[in-house]
């Protein structure tokens, strides 16, 4: 645990530094735009081009800010042994932080934006690891170009269900049958059992389902 606290503390500190870097980039871009706005009429033929470049800089600041904010929250996850967190937020966090890995596999994860607030009390590191393990399995067994929709809800038994479903199901049947034989799946099962929860794979409809038990429902 000391090791994860160490990793988390360093990562959180670095996200603070990244925020400072982004702040300087934003102000510098903003100052350029301020000067550009002082140029009257057509006195500077690259005015529109510069506006576009400054706009691109701002877009990247916004992108970097969102990533570093989520990375900071991720880095703070070892701070408590048990925490109450919003499942859709956890999903979004892991989707954004894994975006580069998914992009490399040409796979897109999309979360259901209408889930509302679904609180779960659990081990903050293990729950994130489980979500990532589910995504990682799917990244390895889905085909490039596929989109995976992630839906979260609370069922009648107060279990929290996370369902990952592949859009073009006809292509995944064979690959999904291999998942349960993989070491990745065994690792996922180990994590899900440590959370007193369950995981299911359904090759016929191309879904991976996690049934999560909140600590306050045990």
């Amino acid at each position, binding site marked *: 645990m000391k090791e994860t606290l160490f990793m988390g503390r360093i990562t959180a500190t670095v996200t603070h530094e990244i925020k*400072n870097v982004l702040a300087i980039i934003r102000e510098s871009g903003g100052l350029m735009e301020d000067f550009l706005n002082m140029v009257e009429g057509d006195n500077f033929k690259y005015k529109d081009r510069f506006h576009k470049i400054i706009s691109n800089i701002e877009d990247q600041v916004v992108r970097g800010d969102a990533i570093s904010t989520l990375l900071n929250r991720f880095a703070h996850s070892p701070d408590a042994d048990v925490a109450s967190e919003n499942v859709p937020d956890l999903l979004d966090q892991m989707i954004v932080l894994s975006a580069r890995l998914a992009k490399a596999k040409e796979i897109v994860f999309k979360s259901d934006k209408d889930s509302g607030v679904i609180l779960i009390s659990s081990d903050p590191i293990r729950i994130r690891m489980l979500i990532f393990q589910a995504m990682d399995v799917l990244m390895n067994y889905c085909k490039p170009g596929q989109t995976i929709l992630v839906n979260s809800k609370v069922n009648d038994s107060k279990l929290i269900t996370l369902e990952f479903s592949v859009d073009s199901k006809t292509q995944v049947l064979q690959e999904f049958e291999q998942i349960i034989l993989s070491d990745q799946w065994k690792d996922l099962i180990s994590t899900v059992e440590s959370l007193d929860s369950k995981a299911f794979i359904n090759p016929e409809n191309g879904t991976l389902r996690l049934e999560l038990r909140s600590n306050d429902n045990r």
Partner: protein
Amino acid sequence: MGSLKVMLVDDEQEFAITLAERLRMRGIETITAFDGEEALKLIVGDKPDVVVLDIMMPGMSGLQVLGKIAEIHPGIPVILLTGIGSTTEGIAGMKIGAHDYLMKPIQIEELIDKIRAAVKK
């Protein structure tokens, strides 16, 4: 806003200098300090209307500087800047007397709105 004077305190000098220039272009007189000790010295002579203060600085932290300002110059409102991806430190600052807080990277229009609101209070 012409007579408004703001003190900007941040150890990230490039950030402070650039933001100060942008505030001046918008008619706000702005002075800069790059650490807490310098800020507490300048505040006596310059008498700013508002202090914009970074929380995480070497030497005296922003919260320590805030405590001193609240003690010695209770009439000067302080707006905290935090680079941390949570609101925890900002809220902690408001509990010990900060007027408001903003997350870095800031939007200058939002900062000016908060400066105006702080002066009106």
